[in-house]
């Protein structure tokens, strides 16, 4: 026990020069200010309304990786759907009610001798229409620069170790294609329903930095 643990400790030995940080305390960068100014001008000039902007943000936030999990689970359970997904991603996910708006969804399948991982080295291209917003690490300079340079080391940092006899395919999203990794279906899942399978398909496994969960975990 030290004096600091005394219940009646009066705190006067600490000088708090600043109020504790608040979640909305932040310094905006040049481009964030530019973005805010542009939004305010568009609203002021009546090009878009504040409500339309809000609705769009709400819509974007409503899209989650669970959509992609359903697509992958169906591809695991239904070989014909899997073929349609590989041939035309947009048409296949539309069967499940998911709509790619301006980009082309390209599904890439992991195989016993091939593992796929996705990046956008130039910015942050990601199948947002299907999976929602990308994780912050996906947009980091470290991930973007390193996954094309030393992909196996990056995957190892995610806890994913790819054997040397498995080819690694890194997909750099440089144009209008958005890549969805279809992981391999885990062993021991033969009796599972599509809904049960979908619960195994994590966001990161659809980016390719990890493998799907194993049943029973």
């Amino acid at each position, binding site marked *: 026990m030290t004096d600091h643990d005394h219940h009646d400790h009066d705190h006067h030995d600490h000088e708090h020069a600043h109020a504790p940080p608040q979640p909305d305390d932040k310094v905006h960068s040049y481009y964030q200010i530019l973005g805010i100014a542009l939004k305010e001008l568009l609203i002021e000039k009546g090009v878009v309304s504040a409500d339309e902007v809000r609705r769009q943000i709400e819509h974007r936030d409503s899209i989650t990786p669970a959509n992609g999990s359903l697509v992958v689970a169906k591809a695991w359970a239904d070989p014909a759907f899997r073929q349609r997904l590989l041939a035309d991603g947009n048409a296949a996910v539309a069967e499940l009610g998911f709509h790619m708006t301006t980009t082309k969804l390209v599904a890439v399948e992991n195989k016993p001798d091939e593992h796929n991982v996705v990046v956008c080295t130039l910015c942050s291209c990601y199948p947002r229409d299907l999976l929602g917003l990308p994780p912050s690490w996906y947009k980091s300079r470290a991930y973007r620069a390193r996954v094309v340079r030393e992909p196996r080391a990056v995957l190892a940092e995610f806890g994913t170790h790819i054997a040397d006899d498995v080819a690694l395919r*890194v997909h*750099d999203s*440089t144009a209008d294609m958005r890549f969805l990794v279809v992981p391999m279906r885990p062993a021991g899942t033969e009796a599972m329903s599509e809904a049960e399978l979908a619960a195994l398909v994590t966001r990161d496994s659809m980016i390719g930095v990890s493998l799907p969960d194993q049943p029973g975990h």
Partner: protein
Amino acid sequence: MTRFSPGEQVRVRDDYPPGHIRTPVYLRGKTGEVDRYFGEFANAEIAAYGLPGPRKGVYKVRFRAIDLWSDYAGPARDVIEADIYEHWLEKTA
């Protein structure tokens, strides 16, 4: 009729023009193999400025990691693939 076919060797132009270019610098001047043709898309180099212009063919091109990085630590079978606009590709032979 597309200019390049799957399996064909192509070289990315070793060129550094100003502007919004979506051909990554790490691939410029590098040789790879056409994986597939995706069709024609708006040319981001022009569309980025809100200007009209002809659509451009886009190919998925596969590069061996050991051809991109002389000190690549992984197996020779590892590849990096990127989507490259047709006007950035040239024949190797």
